């Protein structure tokens, strides 16, 4: 079962894990990304496109489902204002085989960094507000998947 969500409400990792797990599959791999507060960041704001952001996530989840044999896939991305320490993204993939679950999670988190319609704005304690520019390293990682 593929479950994709884009939301401004907080992500409850334990609850999502429990919802995902219902089937009881051989292997589950996950990735949880949280906002980092180093560098004096006080808020990360993610702008999104109501339709394109969700359809991009769905396309990515579908691609993972086509590449690997997955029993379940959960992909939840937060948007709007997020405080340091809060969860911004959750990827959770289950498969009968550990290699498939691990590869799917790695693929999804790499491609999320480049493919999904999201724009990051950082606000810092000293008053600076900066829209994040594209990062070359993220593209290099994403390109590994061809």
């Amino acid at each position: 079962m593929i479950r994709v969500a884009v939301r401004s409400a907080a992500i409850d990792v334990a609850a999502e894990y429990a919802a995902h797990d219902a089937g009881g599959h051989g292997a589950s791999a996950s990735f949880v990304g949280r906002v980092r507060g180093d560098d004096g960041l006080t808020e990360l704001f993610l702008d999104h496109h109501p339709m394109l952001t969700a359809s991009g996530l769905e396309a990515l989840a579908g691609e993972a489902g086509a590449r690997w044999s997955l029993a379940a896939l959960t992909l939840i991305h937060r948007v709007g204002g997020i405080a340091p320490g809060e969860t911004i993204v959750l990827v959770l993939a289950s498969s009968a085989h550990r290699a498939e679950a691990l590869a799917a999670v790695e693929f999804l988190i790499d491609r999320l960094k480049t493919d999904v319609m999201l724009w990051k704005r950082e606000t810092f304690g000293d008053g600076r507000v900066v829209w994040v520019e594209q990062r070359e390293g993220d593209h290099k990682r994403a390109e590994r998947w061809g």
Partner: protein
Amino acid sequence: MLKLSYFAWVRERMGTGEESVSLPDDVHTVADLILWLAARNDAGARAFAEPMRIRAAVDGHMAVPGAVVPRSGEVALFPPVTGG
């Protein structure tokens, strides 16, 4: 009427997230639209000063600069995405 929607710093510089416009007859492509918006007012000049940094989606699909803009529907204009 064509609906335009703006995201990230394009939204900020335009001072709005969306608007409806009637396109002049000589605006045919996404590139034309961006040049027209840049010339229309101060906000447009700030938001679209560097057309190379603008990406577009027409009716929910990514569009190249040469893509035709419909007379009605939706065009989204935004900077390169910075991911999740």
